[in-house]
């Protein structure tokens, strides 16, 4: 049976990472840490027979629901979900593209505020993730460490004395930890400085990705920065390393923004005002165009050109304008062209009161 009630609860609630309350939230949208874990006694997900997958899923579900910190969480068994539901969870950054597309038994545990989520039978048996608003990596690590230690008491992890936590892909072995930050680098994009940052990152063994993680496009001036290596460095060191680099990236972005405001004000105002104009009046709007325009609008809010728009409402639009959310909100299946119409309508309604300073 489809868990309609649970999915609707998610749809109408604001997830923690979109509240826009975390530190440096004008530039850093969210901070995420995930741990890859596998259970001993089972082959890795891809080579596990369906009956054993079911066994593992049940074992994990039992462990998860018994954790006090995940007492009220949702547990989704994918056999009860439709493609649209999976797309919906993906848009909320609760699951990966691979997890949505894979076949076989799979599941997901999510805490009510969507801070903690655990993908079951992704590439690894468990992907334990914590998602926080703003630049909050240290706190995210503290929490994910706690969840992991609690699960460790109930499950038996696959661990090797010198290689650490064993993972299906050798690029995750060791700590199994991937820390990442989603940043909005509109200023650095406009001043054409982003490539410099991206190149510097690779020298520091950090990677840049698009809005939806691996293999996705960089759109709306959003980037995800994350650590590349997982073996040979303790968790705190990896997290601290990314945190330090992020602070520098933030400084550069701030400089770029003040340069734009001081030296290229007319041009910047023009771009932002045009974006607001289009968002408030267009009749058809594709998601790619919306993302670009919302990015400009976000910049407008951050530099103080726009009033009557809270960060929370603005962030919500990034979520609501995506295909699955749009369809869930309108409770009907929509084709691409119909979605573009609905999307424009949603934007006009929600941005009705927005004014320029």
């Amino acid at each position, binding site marked *: 049976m489809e868990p309609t009630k649970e999915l609707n609860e998610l749809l109408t609630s604001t997830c923690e990472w979109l509240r826009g309350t975390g530190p440096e939230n004008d530039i850093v949208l969210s901070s995420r840490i995930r741990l890859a874990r596998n259970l001993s006694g089972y082959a890795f997900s891809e080579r596990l027979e369906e009956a054993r997958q079911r066994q593992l899923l049940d074992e994990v579900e039992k462990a998860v629901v018994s954790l006090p910190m995940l007492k009220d969480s949702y547990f989704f068994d994918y056999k009860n979900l439709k493609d649209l539901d999976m797309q919906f969870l993906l848009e909320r950054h609760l699951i990966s593209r691979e997890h949505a597309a894979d076949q076989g038994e799979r599941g997901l545990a999510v805490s009510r505020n969507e801070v903690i989520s655990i993908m079951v039978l992704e590439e690894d048996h468990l992907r334990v993730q914590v998602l926080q608003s703003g630049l909050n990596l240290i706190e995210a690590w503290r929490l994910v460490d706690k969840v992991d230690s609690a699960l460790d008491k109930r499950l038996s992890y696959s661990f090797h*004395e010198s290689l650490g936590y064993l993972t299906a892909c050798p690029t995750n072995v060791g700590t199994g930890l991937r820390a990442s930050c989603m940043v909005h680098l509109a200023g650095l994009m406009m001043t054409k400085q982003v490539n410099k940052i991206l190149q510097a990152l690779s020298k520091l063994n950090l990677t840049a990705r698009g809005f939806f993680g691996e293999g996705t496009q960089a759109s709306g001036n959003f980037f995800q920065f994350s650590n590349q290596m997982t073996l040979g460095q303790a968790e705190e060191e990896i997290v601290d390393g990314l945190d330090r680099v992020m602070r520098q990236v933030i400084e550069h972005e701030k400089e770029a923004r003040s340069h734009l405001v001081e030296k290229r004000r007319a041009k910047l105002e023009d771009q932002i005002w045009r974006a607001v104009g289009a968002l408030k009046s267009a009749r058809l709007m594709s998601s*790619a165009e919306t993302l670009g325009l919302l990015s400009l609008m976000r910049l407008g809010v951050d530099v103080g050109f726009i009033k009557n728009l809270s960060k929370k409402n603005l962030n919500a639009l990034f979520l609501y304008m995506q295909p699955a959310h749009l369809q869930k909100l309108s409770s009907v299946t929509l084709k691409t062209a119909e979605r573009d119409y609905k999307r424009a309508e949603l934007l006009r309604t929600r941005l009705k009161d927005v004014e320029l300073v």
Partner: protein
Amino acid sequence: MICNACGQNEATIHLTEIMNNQMVEVHLCESCAEQKGSDFKTHFDFNKLLASLSDIGVTGRDEAGEKLTCKTCSMSYEDFGRTGRLGCADCYRFFERVLTPLLKRVQRELRHVGKVPAKATGEMKWSVELRDLHERLKKCIAAETFEEAAQIRDRIHQLEERVKKSDKKQK
């Protein structure tokens, strides 16, 4: 502008992708974009790339020319070359010879430092902690924080004693 994929139709969809930490623009016509899905993947095959980093390449044969295979899950090294994913925890043992050069290239070190599961045996925990402590000791000496270095050294001695004792017990 002509579509990058089919080279025939007018490109109407323009994507910016990040490849190797460089931004690259991709222009596609509507039908090619639809075929590839909205999540237009990077062009190079990550899995092949990964396998090629190991010295054995994608052939996966040992010195005797025999196919390398995991005795537990029967995955061959060729399979790993195709998917980039190992079959089970024991694959690390059976493919050690070819995985080590790969790990050297994609990872910082070959030894784990950091968290250890609570259920790991005492010795396993000690050995990870010992490595951790040796690392920290090196850093303290370099930074000339000798007081902390002395504390770390004491802890190392303590752990080494314990390891010795448990070794004796086992014998």
